[in-house]
């Protein structure tokens, strides 16, 4: 365990090298949120409720979905995994007495720490800016469940990143796949707007994928649109997906390693 702890602290230190660059991301992150709040504010001038969402609920939805999604993002970790494979750095890691998958999990966690803290600060600023519109709920039971869900969300995102990164065993370019899946998952998870605004067919289909449990369900729970019991069910589904994804990672890793040619060293 201790060796993985070192990986985390090393990576945190490494991240401090380019701290200005990490902080610079924060400005871009806010643009999408501003766009969405502007659209909804203007739309709600003539209407009282859309699909059962009042103006206050919709703005809260958009702000918290934004906040949760940036708290749980892996910041394109698939590129790190792909780089390890493409440049042959993976060989270096294979000969060490550690599991690559566990190494990757520790590395990713160290890697996001500073960005995570910045998002917390940024979130606090955004919340205070919207303090008159946002719905704040401080039910302890819900918040604990929410935190657990977001931790699960982070690991679902991380496992997906690792899986996409593993595509690099077979192809030399993963950027296009990464980008497309990113947009798709952000869309299906309800990061931009509540999934329930979509046609019924979409909503039903989305519950067969992991994404809806990563953002949409947590925000709905926070807004009190779904009950605590339904929230627990959502957490259970996240757990199931985590187990499923982990199993897939193990299988793909085994198949990928057979294909691995250690090009680059």
């Amino acid at each position, binding site marked *: 365990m201790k060796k993985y702890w070192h990986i985390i602290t090393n990576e945190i230190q490494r991240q401090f*090298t*380019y701290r*200005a*660059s*990490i*902080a*610079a*991301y*924060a*400005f*871009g*992150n806010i*643009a*999408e949120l*501003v*766009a*969405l709040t*502007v*659209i909804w504010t*203007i*739309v709600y001038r*003539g*209407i009282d409720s*859309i*699909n059962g969402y009042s103006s206050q609920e919709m703005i809260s939805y958009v702000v918290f979905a934004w906040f949760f999604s940036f708290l749980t993002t892996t910041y394109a970790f698939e590129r790190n995994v792909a780089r390890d494979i493409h440049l042959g750095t993976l060989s270096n890691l294979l000969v060490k007495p550690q599991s690559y998958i566990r190494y990757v999990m520790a590395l990713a966690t160290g890697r996001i720490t500073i960005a995570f803290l910045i998002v917390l600060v940024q979130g606090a600023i955004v919340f205070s800016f919207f303090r008159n519109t946002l719905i704040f709920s401080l039910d302890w039971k819900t918040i604990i469940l929410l935190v657990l869900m977001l931790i699960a969300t982070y690991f679902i995102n991380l496992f997906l990143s690792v899986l996409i990164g593993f595509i690099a065993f077979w*192809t*030399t*370019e*993963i*950027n*296009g*796949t990464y*980008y*497309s*899946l*990113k*947009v*798709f998952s952000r*869309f299906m998870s309800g990061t*931009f*707007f509540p999934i329930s*605004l*979509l046609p019924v067919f979409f909503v039903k289909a989305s519950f067969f994928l992991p994404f809806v449990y990563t953002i949409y369900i947590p925000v709905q729970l926070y807004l009190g649109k779904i009950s605590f019991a339904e929230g627990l069910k959502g957490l259970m589904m996240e757990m199931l997906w985590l187990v499923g994804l982990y199993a897939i990672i193990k299988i793909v890793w085994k198949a990928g390693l057979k294909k691995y040619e250690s090009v680059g060293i």
Partner: protein
Amino acid sequence: MKKYLAVIKIEWQRQMTYRINQFTFRIGNIFEILVQILIWTAIFQNTTVVKGYSYQEMMTYILIGWLLSMLMDNYGFENIISDHIEKGQLSNFLSKPISYIKYLITLSVGRCSFTISIAFATNMFLLLLFRHHFIWSKEILVWIILAAMILIGYFIKLFLSILVGFTSFWTVDNHGVFYSINTLAKFMSGYYFPINILPAAFLSFSLALPFVYTFYFPAQLYLGKISIHQGLIGLGIEILWLVILFLAIKVVWKIGIRKYESVGI
């Protein structure tokens, strides 16, 4: 001139290496457009007009805006420049009997011509898919001005990317800066929503900046919300920006090259 033609030809061939990757990027683009279409479709189920836009006009705004802005895009060209500077490859170009800035322009033309044709095909596919909600403009004069705007808009975007890429003379790892500049530029260009739903002061401010001419302005012209006379004035402002940006590139290049240390070779 012939040597620059060779640059275009070589780049075209290089792009063909990762042709699948090109396609996977476009799938992500389609999702991005669909997200916007779905948000506005959901909104228009509750109302018929938003800030003077009917449903058809909003759909047309999104589809034509995307089509035009993709034709003007240079797909992250600043990353290539910053790579040249950070890895010291720039020295390689400096010793050749070519102008680096001219080289960059030809490189991007070769690089984009392939991507743009695929992007054009995918966007036309979307247009046909949504043809019942799309307003076809029959004004020949509008199409001519649009063609001129695409051409100038392409170079405005390219010059901006070159300027942004040149920041690598002074800093390392500026991906955060690139990301933030790009999202802010997207926001200012009217990519998320028509700029004129914002207060009038913001609109006149953004009309003085170059960004709005890469999405909002041509889309409005297409919709007939801007007269041909105003469109020609916009074209004049674009040309002015082109000159300003080119001069800025020249100045920054002169200062930057003095700072250049050729690290990495």
